[in-house]
């Protein structure tokens, strides 16, 4: 199987999705910056979306996977809005967005 066919097969899609997921986890673990952690989470959500869309085409040829991927996109937007609002609130409180500073459960 050559590279072009691999790219257009479910294995290719799954490989991209796995790498994206792992890079997302990596970013979440290594970033100190709260926005950096959010970037990692966005990567993870995209990886999940690719997964659903790939299975939707290659394994059922039906809409179910795409529906879930659509829901992921919709929820990801809500998540980004709330997460960034939290970051803003945290910044007002501490004048920093270093996630390590967020260990206290009170002001």
């Amino acid at each position, binding site marked *: 199987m050559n590279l072009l066919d691999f790219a257009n097969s479910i294995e290719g899609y799954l490989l991209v999705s796995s790498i994206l997921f792992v890079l997302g986890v990596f970013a979440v673990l290594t970033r100190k910056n709260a926005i950096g952690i959010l970037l990692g989470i966005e990567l993870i959500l995209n990886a999940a979306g690719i997964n659903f869309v790939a299975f939707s085409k290659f394994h059922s040829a039906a809409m179910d996977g795409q529906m879930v991927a659509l829901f992921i*996109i919709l929820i990801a937007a809500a998540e980004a809005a709330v997460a*960034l609002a939290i970051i803003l609130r945290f910044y007002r409180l501490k004048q920093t967005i270093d996630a390590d500073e967020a260990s206290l459960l009170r002001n």
Partner: protein
Amino acid sequence: METGYISAFWFIVIAAVTVPLMLGVGALLRPKSIPTKKGTQAYECGEDPIGSAWVKFNIRFYVVAIIFIIFDVEVAAVLPAATLYKDAVLNGNGAWVFAELFLFIALLVLGLIYCWVRGDLEWVKGVTKFAPKK
């Protein structure tokens, strides 16, 4: 995938290539530039800039963007149902799609009213009206 997207691909590639192409043609044509002290400063009408331009800005922009993203997502989500509406009406079962559209509009209006009433749509924040002391 439709054939139309092949055109889209070429449009994007050619538009992207146009930018370095034009800059490259310019590089061949123009005389060599001699940087001066004033010329390499950030332009502030001839004054020497004080401090970096990368400073923190007001959060109003941010609140607008938060409201925007939720509305954007809702509009994107209602498009598929909207394409079905005409056929559904002509086939006599438009009520279900209409209910969906109505719910969507009602939710957007609710969100808008909340932001409006709580003053999040005001650009000028924190300015209280002058109230004379008793």
